């Protein structure tokens, strides 16, 4: 018996990549998954920081997919290299700060590199022609192939019959007749196929698997770049954009106010990197301060932080302000009334 051909599957954790990999396994192909971690991935655990989401299963959907498929999964940290994709997308952004086409090209290039280093034969993805407005448009699929350098070693099992045969099909490594011809945004064919394979409880995030497609998140990223006057970020920056209320009362500083215990605990881990405001006289949130505060700013920031404490109706609330150098000041201030917190301060 000949050695089976080996395919590396891009596993996002969503239904399409799960089904694409399953179709290959059914054809006797040896499949292993790779999953890319960009820092912008929407993961259950990020949400799990917040108490209200604790009922949701805390699982990594890519790992869950691999387990359903019975395949190995390799998670690649591409945080550093991915910055250039987000900061300088050659093909521009989508509706928000999502550089979907550049992202796809980058991921296919990385998968190609992994494929070559690990002796695999071709790449599969769960892409469906016309499903997404930017990265899966029929006229743009060849752009991904061309710019990633993958040539005809990229097979899209869910929509292959709508596309020209790739090398794995022409060489008979896979049977083209058993591949599918899905297209467009209708999800029913995928759901029917999932049922046929017995997959239940699969993830179906509304905005896909990336925070950059989220309008609110994108706004916070743009605000960060504007405030710093340059397009750059570190992992901590983009993690913090997922947590807390972000309030910018002045161009030179922003407050990140925790919304409940889980976020408090998470923000606590950043005490050494940020100045902080802590409510001492009442129960209240921990607030991180991004920026340098004058004494006047500190009072204003403390008043805002107090607004989100249980002392919001009290005449005076005690707030401890700790500067980045460790210097502590106790501020006894009147919480800011909701009406004074300007709408445009909320990032």
């Amino acid at each position, binding site marked *: 018996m000949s050695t089976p051909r080996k395919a590396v599957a891009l596993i996002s954790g969503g239904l399409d990549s799960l089904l694409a990999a399953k179709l290959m396994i059914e054809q006797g192909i040896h499949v292993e998954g790779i999953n890319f*971690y960009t820092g912008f991935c929407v993961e259950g*655990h*990020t949400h799990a*920081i917040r108490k209200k989401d604790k009922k949701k299963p*805390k699982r*990594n959907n890519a790992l869950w997919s691999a387990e359903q498929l019975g395949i*190995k999964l*390799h*998670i690649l*940290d591409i945080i550093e290299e991915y910055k250039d994709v987000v900061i300088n997308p050659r093909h521009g952004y989508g509706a928000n700060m999502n550089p979907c086409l550049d992202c796809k090209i980058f991921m296919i290039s990385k998968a190609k590199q992994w494929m070559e280093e690990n002796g695999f034969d071709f790449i599969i993805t769960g892409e469906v022609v016309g499903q997404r407005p930017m990265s899966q448009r029929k006229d743009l699929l060849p752009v991904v192939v061309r710019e990633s350098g993958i040539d005809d070693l990229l097979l899209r099992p869910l929509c292959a019959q709508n596309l020209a045969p790739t090398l794995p099909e022409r060489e008979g490594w896979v049977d083209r007749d058993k591949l599918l011809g899905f297209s467009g945004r209708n999800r029913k064919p995928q759901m029917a196929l999932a049922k046929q394979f017995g997959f239940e409880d699969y993830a179906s995030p509304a905005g896909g698997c990336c925070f950059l497609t989220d309008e609110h998140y994108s706004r916070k990223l743009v605000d960060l770049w504007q405030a710093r006057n340059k397009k750059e970020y570190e992992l901590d920056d983009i993690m913090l954009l997922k947590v807390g209320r972000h309030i910018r009362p002045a161009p030179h500083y922003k407050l990140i106010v925790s919304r409940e215990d889980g976020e408090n605990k998470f923000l606590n881990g950043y005490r050494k990197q940020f100045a902080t405001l802590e409510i001492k006289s009442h129960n209240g949130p921990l607030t991180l301060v991004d920026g340098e505060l004058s004494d006047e700013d500190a009072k204003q920031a403390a008043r805002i932080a107090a607004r989100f404490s249980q002392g919001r109706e009290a005449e005076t609330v005690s707030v401890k302000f700790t500067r980045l150098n460790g210097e502590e000041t106790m501020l006894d201030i009147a919480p800011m009334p909701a009406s004074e917190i300007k709408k445009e301060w909320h990032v």
Partner: protein
Amino acid sequence: MSSYKLDARNSLCPMPVIKTQNKVNELHPGDTLEVTCTDPGALNDIPAWCRINGHEVIDTKESDGVVVIVVRVGS
């Protein structure tokens, strides 16, 4: 066979899994790796990663928001 430790505190999933994966890739079958995390999601993810990739979780502990998972490297 040797025992190793990995500090994955203050990183959110999947970073603890990636750190575990990268460390395990350097180790030998039978070695053990004690991973300390603060993301409770690691309690699900690291065992799931181990099941998929042929490694064994031999102990898990959780107290005061700190999770410790001991992995025995498979062949």
